[in-house]
Structures are given as structure tokens and as C-alpha cells.
């Protein structure tokens, strides 16, 4: 036996393994590749502008922090600014949402600001939501978008993006996931959304986990001062159809959420109109704390919590 014999045996083995995959085919169509390339090119161009943008964002942040005392956003000519986020609409129709590190987002303000810029979204403190799929037993599942599993953007900031589909759905949802990723460009703590790339019949669910995690964390975890924004792509429901909301299941901090079922509760309702605004600002109530929401249960009525009830 010589080295060539050894190599050819290895090569035969690998070739046979590859041959066993003869029925495996790439499902991604050419136009999806081209769209992905274009999106990456746009990101690259934006990165080139980051230096200039950072200065502008710094000025905006300084003005925002000195001028705002937790009040509503200033919103004119396609721009909104609060102490927790800024929202800027560009000439090409895209909208850039920039989160300020470690400042809690007021869900009501963010939802109204997004609605003004034509981005249908539901914003909730501490949980992500999905429309109800049948019964409570059909738990929603969260499929992460590429790049998997979570695009960590910068230290201290963590953005998760999910597509929420019925339990049991398979990777046939890949096209939907891809469409979702096309609607977003993430640079640092800024999320650029292209409303025209949003899949039809879908809206966004924003959740802010930072506060809840820090409160519940064991001492070592307190060092992890993340701003953790979770974005899910969900179906726009029929009027008054309930949402199911919950913390992400099985997190180190939420092995046993207060309501017992990490997947689906509490429920919430809102009208189908994307421009709906919250009836009560969740941040105006103490219900962002899990311990302050004792009435939540999988069977809770849709209006069991003011913070989870959104009306037009």
C-alpha cells in the first residue's frame, strides 16, 4: 500500500458520499441570489457611510437625550426621535430605526412611529407575539432568519429576527424567511427596513427583552447588559383575532415563566389596521415585569392585560 492507495480510498469514500446526495438540489432560485447580492451591495455602500452616519447619529442622540424626558417622539418629515430610538425615512422609501443602547423602548411610541412610516408592527414589552394558529395546543414556533442563529450586531446590542409559523411547519417556509431577511439591513444598532420588501399579509412583532432579563438574571448575568430587541414576522390577523405572546422558550432566565407556558401566553388582540395605536402605553403600566402580570395564562381572555391589548 502506498500514499496514493490511501488517497484514492478516501476519495472514493467522499465521492460515494457525494453521490448519495444526488437527489439533493439547491432550492434557492437565481433571482433570490441576485436580490441577496444587491442587498449585500447596499449594506456595503452604507458601511462606507458609517463614519459620517455615526457623527450624525451622535448629534441626534445628544439632542435627543438632552431634549427628551421620556415624552413622545418628535415626528416630522419622516423622522421620529425619542430617548430610546430614532426613526428616519429615506428618499428611497426605506426606514432606518436606530436603537439607543440600554435605554428601554416605549412600545406604544415605537408602534405609532412605525405605523406613521407605513410599517405594520406590534410592539410589546418583553415578549414576542404571533397570531393564534388554531388552538392553544398548537404552539407557535420561531424560525431564526439567516445568518443563524442571531445576528449579534455589536457588543451590548443583540437583535434577533424570527419568522413565526405554526408548530409543525417545516423548512418549506424558507422562501418566507428569505423574504424577511430582504426587508432588513442591520448595521450596528440600526435596522433599515424596506416596507416594499415586506411579504404581503405580514407584519412585525417587536419585543424588548433587556429589562426583563436584567431583572431576572442571576448575579453573573447582570454583567450582560444587552439591549435585546426581538423582531418577528407574523401574519396580519383578521380583526379581533387573538395574538399569542410569550418570552422565548427555554431561555436561561425563563425556564419557568410566570404563566407556566413559555410558548403562547398571554394573548392579545388588536385590529387588523397596521396604523393601529395602543390604547394604553405598556410602558405607562408596571406590567412589563413578569411578576406584575399574574393574570396571564394560556387560557387568558384576549383583554386580560392592558399592556397586551391594542385597539385601533
Amino acid at each position, binding site marked *: *500500500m502506498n*500514499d496514493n*492507495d*490511501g*488517497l484514492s*480510498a*478516501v*476519495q*472514493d*469514500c*467522499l*465521492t460515494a*458520499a*457525494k453521490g*448519495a*446526495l444526488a*437527489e*439533493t*438540489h*439547491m*432550492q*434557492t432560485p*437565481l433571482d*433570490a*441570489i*441576485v436580490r*441577496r*447580492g444587491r442587498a*449585500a*451591495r447596499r449594506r456595503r455602500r452604507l458601511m462606507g457611510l458609517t463614519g459620517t452616519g455615526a457623527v450624525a447619529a451622535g448629534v441626534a442622540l445628544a439632542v435627543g437625550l438632552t431634549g427628551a424626558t421620556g415624552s413622545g417622539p418628535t415626528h416630522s418629515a419622516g423622522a421620529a426621535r425619542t430617548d430610546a430610538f430614532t426613526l428616519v425615512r429615506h428618499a428611497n422609501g426605506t426606514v432606518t430605526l436606530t436603537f439607543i443602547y440600554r435605554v428601554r423602548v416605549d412600545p406604544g411610541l415605537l408602534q405609532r412611529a412605525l405605523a406613521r412610516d407605513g410599517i405594520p408592527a406590534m410592539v410589546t414589552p418583553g415578549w414576542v407575539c404571533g397570531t393564534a394558529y388554531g388552538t392553544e395546543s398548537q404552539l407557535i*414556533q*420561531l424560525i*431564526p432568519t*439567516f*445568518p*443563524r*442563529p*442571531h*445576528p*449579534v450586531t455589536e*457588543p451590548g446590542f*443583540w437583535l434577533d429576527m424570527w419568522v413565526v409559523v405554526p408548530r409543525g411547519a*417545516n*423548512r418549506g417556509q*424558507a422562501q418566507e424567511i428569505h423574504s424577511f431577511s430582504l426587508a432588513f439591513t442591520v448595521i450596528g444598532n440600526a435596522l433599515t427596513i424596506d416596507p416594499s420588501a415586506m411579504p404581503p399579509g405580514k407584519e412585525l412583532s417587536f419585543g424588548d427583552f433587556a429589562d426583563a432579563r436584567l431583572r431576572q438574571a442571576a448575579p453573573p448575568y447582570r454583567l*450582560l447588559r*444587552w439591549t435585546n430587541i426581538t423582531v418577528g414576522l407574523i401574519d396580519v390577523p383578521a380583526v379581533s383575532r387573538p395574538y399569542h405572546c410569550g418570552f*422565548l*422558550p*427555554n*431561555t*436561561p432566565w425563563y425556564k419557568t415563566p410566570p404563566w407556566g407556558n413559555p410558548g403562547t401566553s398571554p394573548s392579545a388582540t388588536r385590529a387588523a389596521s397596521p396604523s393601529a395605536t395602543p390604547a394604553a402605553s405598556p410602558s405607562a403600566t408596571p406590567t412589563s415585569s413578569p411578576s406584575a402580570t399574574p393574570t396571564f395564562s394560556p387560557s387568558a381572555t384576549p383583554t386580560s392585560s392592558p399592556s397586551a391589548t391594542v385597539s385601533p
Partner: protein
Amino acid sequence: MEFAEFYESTRDDCLRIVLLNVGDRQLAEDLVAEAFARAWMSWRKVRTYQAPTAWVVRVALNANVSTWRRRRREVTLGGHDVALPAEDNAVLSGDLLTALRGLPLRQREVVTLRLLLDLDTQATANLLGIAPGTVGSHLHRAAAALRSALPHLADQETST
């Protein structure tokens, strides 16, 4: 060659090779799509390469490494982000996958390019930016590691 023609003629091959390396059907598809998107972005340059297919495979494998590096900095959220089992994963030999994935990245790249894409030593060396002699040493170390991890390979050799 136009990009569309290149994509249609090579995408399945690239997917299978990357799948052999990563062992997860969905991840492999994502990685190959990302690599082809990068090839599209730089097509004027990539089309002039001696082996554009090998370039795509290498970009996909490196993107996988980047994903893992990124993941190391993250906090685990439990099992909800575990990839769903795919049918294609079942046809892959667990031993072979484990052995391949146990190789250092450079050795895996050399094995992939030389044995799966059938590039010659010089072309492999050019693509990886290393000396032809280094390609040879990586290849033989990788082959030795695979033989020791897969006893049936050694049996085949002794029987020939």
C-alpha cells in the same frame, strides 16, 4: 460565461459538497446562497478565476466559520433555535461527517478542493494562497486522520 449559466450548472454540486462539510441541509443551502450572492457581486472578477466553483465552495465554508465565531459570543437561548431535521441529513454517514468536521479548516478545504472538486495541487495552492508542497502535506495529514477515523477505509486499502 454568464452568472446565470454558472449558477444553474454548479449550484447543486456546490450544495452537496458544502452539505458534506457542515452536515445540515438548511445551513448548507444558506451558506451556498450567500457564497453565490458574493460571487454575483464580484462576478467580473470571479469569472476570470481558474475554478470559480471552488471559489464559491471556499467562500461558503469560510462563511460557516464566521457564523460559528459569531455564535461563540452569544448567549445560548436553549433548544428553540436548533435546526430542524432534514431528510437529506439522513443519507449522510454519521462517521464520515464527524471525521470530516473534525479536520482543521485548512485540511478540510484541501480535501474538498482536491478530492471532491478534483482540482490539481497547483490550482488548489493558488486558490488557498499556499505553496503546493503545503497542499500535499495538508492532504496527507487529512487522509491519515480520515483513515484512522473510518476503519473501513483502512480495510479497503489492505484488501487492494
